[in-house]
């Protein structure tokens, strides 16, 4: 089981929860478990082609999955997956 940290802009889709537990052996599976439980998050995370949207950064613990194995990055028990969109506010 991994913990997924939900950014504020997505929390309305997770009933306000800032963290959601999700099971999966890799990042892709964990995120799909998340979208299965909270369907409102799917559109913002995944494009029509099933790939992660380019404007959403996903980290496994502290490393961007783009420098790891993308959605195939293996997830261990207790890992944290961070979803991070850019913020413009200043």
């Amino acid at each position, binding site marked *: 089981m991994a913990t997924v940290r939900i*950014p*504020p*802009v997505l929390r309305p889709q997770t009933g306000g929860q800032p963290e959601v537990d999700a099971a999966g052996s890799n990042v892709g599976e964990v995120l799909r478990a998340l979208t299965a439980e909270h369907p409102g998050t799917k559109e*913002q995370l995944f494009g029509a082609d099933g790939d992660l949207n*380019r*404007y*959403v*950064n996903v*980290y496994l613990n*502290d*490393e*961007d999955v783009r*420098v790891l194995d993308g959605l195939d990055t293996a997830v261990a028990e207790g890992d944290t997956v*961070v979803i*991070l*969109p*850019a*913020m*413009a*506010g*200043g």
Partner: protein
Amino acid sequence: MAPETQTKQQIEEIEPFEAAQEIEGGDVVLIDTREPHEFQEARLEGGKLVPPGLLGDEIATAAPDKSARTILYCRSGNRSYKAAEQMQALGYENVASMAGGILAWQEQGLPVVATEGMTPEQRDRYSRHTLLPEVGVEGQIKMLNAKVLLVGAGGLGAPTALYLAAAGIGTMGLVDDDVVDASNLQRQVIHNTERIGMLKTESARRTIEALNPDVNVVEHPGRMNASNIIEILSQYDVIVDGADNFPTRYLLNDASVRLRKPVVSASILSFDGQISTFVPFEGPCYRCLYPTPPPAELAPSCSANGVLGAMAGTMGLLQANEVLKLVLGIGEPLIGRLLLFEALGTRFTELKVRRDPECPICGEDAPEVADEDLGKFPDYDLFCAG
């Protein structure tokens, strides 16, 4: 014999050139028995300050070894003599006072460490900085000579500007096209109620001038865009990104990488803040981190969703901290590190940011920009509209 003279004969007095020889030989504890402002103005290298009134409390720390050779000096030799007597009474076995003090020392052509480049008022104003070994007079002078540009004089720019001005950043540029509004005052603390309706750059300048007359404020009211960004950025050493929109952030990134200017970049919303420091080619750039901006519904503005005022202040001050570290060349700036602050839980998270080898701005194959094309940029409004 008068008691005074009798007492004076008991303390060894040495000439400055003798003291200099001993100091050079090593194994000498050198004590400066003047007041802090005199110490900051000019002193002997290696001298430890123990003001006369604090001798009893501080001498044991400054001179722990009572048998070590200890030389005391002051301005003209009187206070150091009396201090030497006090030390002798405390059991110090090998003390000497330098006759004629630092005045005689300088007359004999011996070198002193002087706080050149700062007026007495500045030495006083920045004393809490110069006391820090990592800063010192040298560091304060770097800050006074630094030129920092703040893009945005709002939620982030306001607190950042206040603390950079307080620190003595000698030249501060302010870019903002907005006027002060009452709803700004919940967090944009550089402005105030009397400034409502005033250009933010002017309001900020007035506050900064009242806080610290050492700061030269350059106002750049109006929007920064492709036509003026190169000219503006070129005048500064460090840039603070406190913009409130993506097109400006991407444009700023392009221009700062082309001009090789470091950018301290933060963003805020609700209870969340992000901050990183982009040093072109040394670490990632903004585009390495966010190759594509999100659609509007994933990036609401503070005016739509709100922002906790204190949280904006927190991120602004973290930006100020980064700027000072870059100017001083100390500590570890957030290069290659994205710091997230979550105010509700008061939690910090650090994520790694890597240079993207395929980054269109700073990657290996990124196109070289000829000088005449420096001011040509993609249409970021279009880019960000998706």
